[in-house]
């Protein structure tokens, strides 16, 4: 009797385990909440500018510091000098997201290029790129930005350039590791035996394996970059007033925080929702362990 039981268990156990593992990843609603959050924030910043009465810069001191829902012309109220909060929130969101995308795009291109070169060529190129990236990691970005901004003056462009050139190391590291693991595979050697150059080999046989991983990293990074960028805007190192950004709006709203918290709370809430949405979405990738480079065997 005993052997039968043992066999039954041996057959049954893995199936149950598998079903549980599946329900843990697939059943999670968080990624969908994340997508919904991101999508609604995107819709918000895209649709509000189309509404009548949209103007993030027009001042009306007679209607300053209106509370949300107090005036149908200003659904979210107005700030200390009577600018429409809804318009500024949407305009600021658009700027903030665009800048975050620009920074991540620069990081992505820079990091992938550096990582692929380091991993594929190895040798001194690898040592050099690793050194540069470590120096970069050790550098306090905010101090660097303050230093440069004190010389050339703060601007959105400067922030994009500085952040774009200082957050590429994560991409480089993953791209380098993948390139190193692939460079001695036969399918990477084969074209080189035909006289294909390094450019061809990297583009055709290594880059396609790296891109999916990079996109996952990028999605996760957009949230992080948005937070940093909001912090820098708040410090006055990024986009300059009167153009609104979420970080900048918090800076302005903070001055009247005690008497009228809304101008600071609303952009804070917006940042929170987008970043949380991105985190929820990126959980999907990490939960499934989707390192998209499928084991070839």
């Amino acid at each position, binding site marked *: 009797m005993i052997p039968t039981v043992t066999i039954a268990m041996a057959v049954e156990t893995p199936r149950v385990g598998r079903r549980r593992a599946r329900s843990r990843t697939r059943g999670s609603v968080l990624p969908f909440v994340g997508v919904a959050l991101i999508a609604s924030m995107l819709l918000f910043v895209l649709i509000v500018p189309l509404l009548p009465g949209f103007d993030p810069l027009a001042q009306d001191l007679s209607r300053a510091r209106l509370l949300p829902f107090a005036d149908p012309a200003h659904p979210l109220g107005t700030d200390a000098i009577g600018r429409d909060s809804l318009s500024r929130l949407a305009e600021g969101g658009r700027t903030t997201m665009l800048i975050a995308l620009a920074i991540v795009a620069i990081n992505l291109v820079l990091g992938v290029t550096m990582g692929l070169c380091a991993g594929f060529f190895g040798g001194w190129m690898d040592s050099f790129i690793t050194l540069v990236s470590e120096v970069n990691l050790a550098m306090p970005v905010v101090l660097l930005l303050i230093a440069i901004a004190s010389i050339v003056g703060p601007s959105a462009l400067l922030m994009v350039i500085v952040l774009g050139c200082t957050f590429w190391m994560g991409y480089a590291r993953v791209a380098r590791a993948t390139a190193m693991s692939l460079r001695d595979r036969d399918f*990477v050697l084969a074209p080189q035996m035909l*006289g294909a150059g390094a450019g061809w080999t990297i583009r055709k046989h290594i880059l396609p394996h790296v891109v999916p991983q990079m996109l996952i990293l990028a999605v996760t990074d957009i949230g992080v970059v948005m937070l940093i960028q909001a912090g820098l805007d708040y410090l006055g190192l990024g986009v300059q007033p009167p153009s609104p950004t979420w970080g900048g709006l918090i800076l302005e709203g903070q001055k009247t925080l005690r008497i009228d918290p809304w101008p600071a709370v609303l952009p804070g809430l917006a940042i929170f929702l987008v970043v949380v949405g991105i985190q929820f979405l990126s959980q999907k990738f990490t939960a499934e362990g989707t390192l998209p480079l499928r084991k*070839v*065997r």
Partner: protein
Amino acid sequence: MSEFVVEVKDLAVHFGRAGRFASGRVVKAVDGVSLELKRGQTLGLVGESGCGKSTLIRSLFGLTPVTRGSIEVFGKDITASSRSERKRLGTQMQMVFQDPYSALDPRMTVHEIVAEPLRIAGRYDAKAVAELLDRVGVSAEMAQRKPSEFSGGQRQRVGIARALALKPEVLVLDEPVSALDVSIQAQILNLLAELQSELQLAYLFVSHDLAVVRHIADEVAVMYLGRIVERGPKNDLFTAPRHPYTRSLLASAPVARPGAARTKHALAGEPPDAANPPSGCTFRTRCPIARDRCAAERPALGADTAHSAACFFPDVAAREMATV
């Protein structure tokens, strides 16, 4: 032009550097190998893992810098060839890899994989790709699929099609069937034999499977620790091996008949460290008939005769190691 399509002369590939700042450990992965491959013939290259077979092949394709010696393909030395020369070389000599799972890019379709050599050479032709796939027995409707949907044997067929894309006259086959099931092995070997007679291909067939080499090769060279220790026509070498290493290899091959007598001279132990090889004959540490002379001098491979062994005592080997 000589009668040889590929002629390797005294080739040496050493890793690590001797010198004041170097570690001083030099691994002589290939050390003084000479090989000749005739048009339309198959040369079997046999040896256990780590003997330098793969390094030898890599150096044929310029993936490993050569320390000494020359490699002539159709009479032209390729050891210091530029990239454009290497492109031309690709139209003469191609390679089929051992592991059909890592030889094909998992993200490309089979059509793209076979088309790649043509694209690199700048003469892509979809019809030619279809013909190649048809010739190796991969059906047209499979062409748009990824390698992951193929079996090992089918993948190896795709690998062969890729190797044939530029119509080379020489194929280097690096253990092309060792990763396959036995029944599939036979199919691939038959395909290779058909292609050889059809296209007058010369094969350099690298393997550690003596039965396979015996089946497909015309001539056989046996490699041990970076050197060729015996070479000769297939039948001579298999029926009357002259080097004790070859004898041991043959003796260690499994016997098909149950209860059949096994010889007592199956190979024991590991090959010595290639960075620190024994003096004299490198095989003497595992050789059952080693004498004092073997430690003092290094036996050379006779260049004059068709069948020769790098051993001082081939007759002793024949007498003392005869199958029981």
